[in-house]
Each structure stands twice: as C-alpha cells, then as structure tokens.
C-alpha cells in the first residue's frame, strides 16, 4: 500500500534586503513550522536567505493556461502605457 502523501509546500525566499520574495522551490512537511525548517535547511545553505515564506501548494490559486489569451492578450495593444510611445525631441534631454 502506498504511504499517505506528506503535504507539499512552496518556498519563497528574500535573498537580500530590499528584494522581494522569490519562488525557490518546494518541500514536503507535515505542518507550517516544519515547513519553515525544511525550507531553511534545503534552500538557504549558501547564504541565500534573509527571510522565508512557505505556502501550502494546494492553497495557491493559479490562472488557467486556457484563459491565457483572454487574460493577457488585451494589454499587448496598449502601447501608450510605455514611455517609448511618446515622441520627445532629443534636445530636451533625458525624460
């Protein structure tokens, strides 16, 4: 018989002050405290960490790839949101 699966957690690490937490990988743990320990022992062995978040993988809500066009296509045409859309003479200098 297969052993009961231990919950999966996603690990996010802030590498340095001023940076945001970034996904580092996943680990298995039975509870939040052990998940933090495992994240520390697995993903910060080379001084990579200042702060750790762990989130149960099953608690993450993800967008569906099927909705990709609906979700992300409409913004592609809104080029006026980017600075390069606007023409400013060179002699004005950096703006």
């Amino acid at each position: 018989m297969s052993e009961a699966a231990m919950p999966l957690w996603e690990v996010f690490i802030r590498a340095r002050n001023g940076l945001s937490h970034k996904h580092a990988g996943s680990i298995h743990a039975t509870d939040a405290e052990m998940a933090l320990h495992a994240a520390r022992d697995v993903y910060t062995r080379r001084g990579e960490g200042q702060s750790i978040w762990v989130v149960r993988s099953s608690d993450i809500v993800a967008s569906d790839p099927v909705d990709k066009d609906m979700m992300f296509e409409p913004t592609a045409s809104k080029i006026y949101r980017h600075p390069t859309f606007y023409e400013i003479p060179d002699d004005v200098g950096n703006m």
Partner: protein
Amino acid sequence: MSGTCETIMASNQTLFSYVLRLADDHLILSQRLGEWCGEAPTLEEDLALANIALDLIGQARALYAYAGQVEGKGRNEDQLAFMRYERDYQNLLITEQPNGDFAHTIVRQFFISAYMDPFWRRMESSKDEMLAAIAAKASKEVTYHLRHTSEWVIRLGDGTRESHERMVEALDDLMMFTGELFEMDAVAQEMLQSGVGVDASDLKAEWQHTVQTILQEATLELPKAGHMQTGGRTGRHSEHLGHILSELQYMQRSFPGLTW
C-alpha cells in the same frame, strides 16, 4: 620570575585541556550525525541533520586549531583530531552514544543542544577573546539546533503510540549521561576562576527548565535522575568510542604523515 612563568605555563596547559575537550565533544558528535547522511526519515531531514553536523565540524575545527595554538607544539587541527589514543579523547560520554533510532538521535541532540545553548551564550563574555569569538558564532548555530530538535521531540512524543514509546525508551537510555554535562572538575574550575570558562554546574536549572517545558508539550516526562555515568573528561569512555575512532582515524593511521 620563574614562578610567574610556571603559572602561565600551568594555565596554558589548563586552557589547552579545556579547549581540547570542547573540540572533542563537537568532533565526536558530528561524526555520529554524519552517519545519518543518506539515512534520515525524510529527504528534508537528511539535509537538516547534515547541516547540524557541518556546524559541529566547523566548531570542532575552530577549537582544535585554537588548542594547537595554545599548546604551542606545532600540532594542527588534524593532528589533534586524528592522532591521539582512545584514553586521550575527553569528550562527554553522551556525544559518543550510538545513533540508535531517530528518537535516540533526536533526544541526544536535544539534551546536548539545551546544554550548549546557554553554555555558548555565557562563553561569549569569556575573557579569552578567541573562545568568545568562537562562542559568538556557535551560539547562533546551536540555538537553531535546539529549536529544530525541540520541534521533533514534540512531534514524536505527541505523535503515535509507537513514536511515544520510542521516545520514552530514548529518554530512559540517555538520561544517565546527562549528569556529566554539569560537572566541574579542576580544569573547569580553574578556567572559571580566571574568567575564561563557564560554570557548567550553574547551567543545570536552565537546562532542566528548557527540557521539561518541551517534554511537557510532547506529553513526555524527564526520567528520574538515577546514577549518573561519568568518565569522558578523564578518558574513561563507553565501548563505542573505540569503534568511532577506528573509522575516524583509519586514513591517518594507515598512511601516517601524509597530506590529503
């Protein structure tokens, strides 16, 4: 003049002895933990135990290097770690006890961490700058060891019936080696008086408090303190140390004097 000189010599010898025994504690315990590599109950814990072992090897190396310097006979960390006889090792008996099952390893590490945590914190204010510096680094490391092993004590004590029973057995097996932690022999006394060492006997109350708080949460009890074993500091060990040394020293004994 010569009298002063002798006092310095004597206290150097004592300091050497004091640093060396601490180094031995960490080496032997790390050797034991290293045996877990690839064998732990989960992959995550495999990495966790190796992290603790690596902290301990690091502490041992710093201590041996310093001991060699204090001794002043040109012995380096490896000569001190690998080239002595069984009766010359002065580690605490608890550090050499077998890994047993995971419960035994966790209880052993928990007992020792609950002791070393306040030990290193006090050592941070040693008059000996080198020991104070080693302590500053080690105390952060051991605080995590204590946290990690405490979490396991709670989970195993208050887990299943089997895990609870295994913990009770581990506590019973290891309790008799905890008295030695708090002994103050002549070396320790002299170091305490000169402001270098820590009063180990004074750590007992804090140790008991830490241990009992966690055990209570784990629905476990600290066994009654019966006769306490002693001898590590004078080189009277359990039978286990000889086997540890036969592996530890294998290369240095088979090929004496070579560089690796």
